[in-house]
C-alpha cells in the first residue's frame, strides 16, 4: 500500500465517520459538528484528486458558511434546553433500504469497466485554465448561478422577515 492510498483510507474513514455522526447522533449540535468533519474530509479528497481550488471552495463555503448557517438555524429552532432529536419509527426499513442501495452501488462500481485505469497519470488542473474556462466556456451557467443566488437571497429575506403584527 502506497502512502497516497494510506492517506486516502484515513481521509475516507474520517468522511464516513462524519457521515455516520450526522445521521446517528442524538444531539443536533454534535450532528452539525460531525457534518463539518465530513465536509473537511471531502475537501481532503478533492486535494487527493489534484483539484486544490475546489478543496479551498469546499472549506470556505461548506465548512464556513453553510455549516454556520445550519448551526444558527439549530439555535433558532430549539424547543427546549437540551437540543435533542428523535429518530423516526421506520428506521429499520430505512436502514434496510440504504444497505440495499449501497450494496447495489458498490456492485455496479465493482463490475463496471472504468476507463482510465491503465493510464497511470492523474492531471493537476492549472488554476488559470480553470478560471478561463469558467468565464469563457461556462459563462452562461456562471451568470445563471449568480441569478440563483440572488433569487435565494431575496426569497430568504422575504420568508424570514417579521410580519407586521409580530
Amino acid at each position: 500500500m502506497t502512502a497516497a492510498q494510506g492517506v486516502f483510507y484515513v481521509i475516507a474513514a474520517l468522511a464516513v465517520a462524519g457521515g455516520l455522526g450526522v445521521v446517528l447522533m442524538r444531539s443536533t449540535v454534535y450532528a452539525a459538528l460531525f457534518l463539518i468533519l465530513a465536509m473537511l474530509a471531502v475537501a481532503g479528497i478533492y486535494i487527493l484528486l489534484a483539484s486544490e481550488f475546489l478543496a479551498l471552495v469546499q472549506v470556505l463555503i461548506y465548512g464556513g458558511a453553510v455549516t454556520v448557517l445550519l448551526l444558527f438555524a439549530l439555535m433558532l429552532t430549539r424547543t427546549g434546553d437540551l437540543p435533542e432529536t428523535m429518530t423516526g419509527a421506520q428506521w429499520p426499513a430505512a436502514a434496510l433500504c440504504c444497505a440495499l442501495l449501497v450494496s447495489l452501488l458498490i456492485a455496479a462500481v465493482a463490475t463496471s469497466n472504468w476507463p482510465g485505469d491503465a493510464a497511470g497519470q492523474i492531471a493537476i488542473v492549472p488554476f488559470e485554465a480553470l478560471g478561463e474556462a469558467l468565464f469563457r466556456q461556462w459563462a452562461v451557467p456562471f451568470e445563471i448561478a449568480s441569478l440563483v443566488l440572488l433569487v435565494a437571497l431575496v426569497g430568504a429575506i422575504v420568508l424570514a422577515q417579521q410580519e407586521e403584527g409580530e
Partner: protein
Amino acid sequence: METAAQQIPLEHFLVLSAILFSLGVYGVLTRRNAVLILMSVELMLNAASINMVAFAAYTAPEAFIGIIFAIFIITVAAAEVGLALAIILRIFRNRQTANVDEVNQLRW
C-alpha cells in the same frame, strides 16, 4: 498540464461516494428535525460532487467538466440551504416546532 502518478484506483473514490450517499439517504429518511434532514441532503450533494471530480480527474482531465460541475453544485447547495432554512424558520414561527412529524396538518 502536469501529471502525478495515479496511485489510488478510481473505484475507491466511487465506493466512498456510494457510502456517503447512502448515509445521506438514511439521514433523510430517519431524522425528524428539519435542519438535520437538510444536513443529510448536503451529505448527498457532497457525495455526488466527489463522484464528479473523480471522474473528471481520471477520465477527462483536460476538460475538467467535473470540477466545474462540482463548483456549481456547491453554489446551488449554498443557495438552497439559505432558502430552506428561511422556510424552516417560518414554520417554526407558526407551529413552534422543527419536528417534521408534527407539521402534518395538510395530510389526508
